[in-house]
């Protein structure tokens, strides 16, 4: 029931919590700064916690597989590599071989790919102010895969022996094939982002328009992939099919060593954009009035995210949903400040992909399940949960 206030009552109520009193320091605000500092502390702790979890999970993952290696021996292998004189290697010499030659590059690849997909998700969601965009939903994954598929089919005949050649960097063979794969994946990944922006109108187009544009572009490139499959010979067909499932099995040190600098530099550059991306949450106009060059920021950020995702997907094939899952899980815990969300989501993405890949390695051992398949299952369920969440339905 609405109570009617008399004029004097209204006056009294107005005086009790008048903004004047607050402005004149009658209300303390010391607690508020403390609140923010506590929040930041929580965010940093969350990131550190994830870091520890990721390291532990990596060590465990190094040990399990078709041959189980005790953790102590895993540590010995790593320790021996880092400091051969003071730490002895494991008694079983082949443990070193399994870990260093086979599992370590694969695990690093899972970590790097998880990081790159997650940070791209954070950046894209921030830049387009759309909680449903990610490398996967915008069609970057399909486009990058198309680029890679075309490279696999055509590059050997175009480039000939150069395709299989390489240079030695840090004692590892960097094969030109890998560089070409990254290059063409990136070019098509970038093209897909630009297409989405053009098709959906502008950066601040409605959420569903952007997603629809992404879906359409995804289909276009998938048609392209089907075409590539159709015209390829048996060997290339097998290679493409295996690789499209999204897996870490073909990973070598060579590909890992190319990706580390790309993702590291991408991460640093994106982190530099983080403050500006935060301003975008208030709308393009306000961001612009805060001194941010919005279109430049958007182009730069999207190009960077296309680069890091395409580069990784060139080797792993399509891996969906990490770019959605990792940022959203982290947002629940630490909020939407891009500066903290980026590293948190990066670690979360790395962790999810690592765990999924490890599960895929052992669940039907000695055979393996491609991590892409596992991600489709977990990610699909997550995506359904995401779009039915009340919070985000209201935002559309």
């Amino acid at each position: 029931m609405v109570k009617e206030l008399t004029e004097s009552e209204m006056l009294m109520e107005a005086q009790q919590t008048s903004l004047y009193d607050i402005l004149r320091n009658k209300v303390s605000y010391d607690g508020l700064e403390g609140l923010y500092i506590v929040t930041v502390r929580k965010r940093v702790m969350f990131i550190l916690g994830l870091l520890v979890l990721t390291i532990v999970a990596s060590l465990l993952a190094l040990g399990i597989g078709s041959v189980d290696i005790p953790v102590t021996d895993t540590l010995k292998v790593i320790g021996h590599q880092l400091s051969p004189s003071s730490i002895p290697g494991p008694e079983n010499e082949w443990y070193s071989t399994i870990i260093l030659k086979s599992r370590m590059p694969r695990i690093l690849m899972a970590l790097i790919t998880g990081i790159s997909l997650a940070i791209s998700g954070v950046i894209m969601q921030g830049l387009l102010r759309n909680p449903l965009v990610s490398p996967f939903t915008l069609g970057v994954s399909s486009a990058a895969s198309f680029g890679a598929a075309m490279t696999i089919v055509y590059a050997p005949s175009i480039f000939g022996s150069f395709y299989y050649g390489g240079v030695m960097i840090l004692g590892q063979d960097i094969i030109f094939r890998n560089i070409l794969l990254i290059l063409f994946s990136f070019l098509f990944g970038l093209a897909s982002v630009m297409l989405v922006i053009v098709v959906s109108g502008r950066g601040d187009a409605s959420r569903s328009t952007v997603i629809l544009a992404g879906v359409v572009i995804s289909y276009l490139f998938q048609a392209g992939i089907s075409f590539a499959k159709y015209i390829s010979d048996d060997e290339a067909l097998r290679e493409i099919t295996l690789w499209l499932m999204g897996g870490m099995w073909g990973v070598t040190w060579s590909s890992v060593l190319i990706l580390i600098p790309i993702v590291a530099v991408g991460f640093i550059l994106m982190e530099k954009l983080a403050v500006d991306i935060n301003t975008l949450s208030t709308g393009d106009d306000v961001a612009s009035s805060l001194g941010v060059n919005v279109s430049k920021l958007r182009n730069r950020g999207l190009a960077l995210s296309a680069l890091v995702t395409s580069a990784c997907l060139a080797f792993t094939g399509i891996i969906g949903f990490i770019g959605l899952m990792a940022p959203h899980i982290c947002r629940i815990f630490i909020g939407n400040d891009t500066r903290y969300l980026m590293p948190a989501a990066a670690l979360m993405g790395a962790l999810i992909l690592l765990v999924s890949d490890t599960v895929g390695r052992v669940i039907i051992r000695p055979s393996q399940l491609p991590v892409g398949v596992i991600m489709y299952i977990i990610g699909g369920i997550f995506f359904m949960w995401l779009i039915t969440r009340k919070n985000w339905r209201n935002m559309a």
Partner: protein
Amino acid sequence: MRITLEDVCQSYDSFEVLRNISFTAETGEVLALLGPNGCGKSTLIKTVCNVKPAFSGSVHIDGTNIAAINKKALAKLMAYVPQGTTHSVFSTVYDAVLVGRRPYMEWSYTRNDLRIAAEAMVAMNVGDLADRYVNELSGGQMQRVFIARALTQDPSFYLLDEPTSSLDIRNQLDTMRIMNEIVKGRGSGMIVALHDLNLALRYSDKVLVMKDKGVYAFGRPEDVITERTIREVYGVDAEIVEGKHGKYIQPYDRSDAGLCIS
């Protein structure tokens, strides 16, 4: 600081929105923009802060053309609060308010930034919402959060587009009073688009009334806001009544006066 507009024209694609607008706004003053829906108030505010650069004509700040001022330097001079928000901001109130420090920071906030943001939140009465998510707030609370962000920006000029549109009567008065106090106390300036003529009458020093994409009248509120202006600009008959606490406007529907069209 003085903002001068000379013959500013503005258009969206080929659709003209503003025609030959000229006026001057100074710090220490509240300038209210009045006019019916769609008369170009919002566009004018965007033009003044260069979010949408003028199609023709010029905007000068203390004699310098706004186009020649670095974006970041301009952000320290003017804070812009758009009308409502079509999208929700998925971040905490504190984070959303701190965004206003962008022109002053590189990557991290200093203690001073936190203090300024805290003061702004308390001033706008959203301090107790600091760790809530903006998209969970009511329209009025959101609006106060966005004004708090503008305060955090600590500019010389505030450009507010209908800041009171989703506030209740208490918060309308509080908001206008506090902005007025900031303008007078800190020597800032404010250009504010308003629908409520009574608020304009009470809190502004100057009034710019817009009609048909151009300026209808510009001057002191008591000179400009007249029964004739209200009739010609809004097409509404109203009486300006001398009340106990000053003048107020009492609009009446024509049907009340027996002038029912049907």
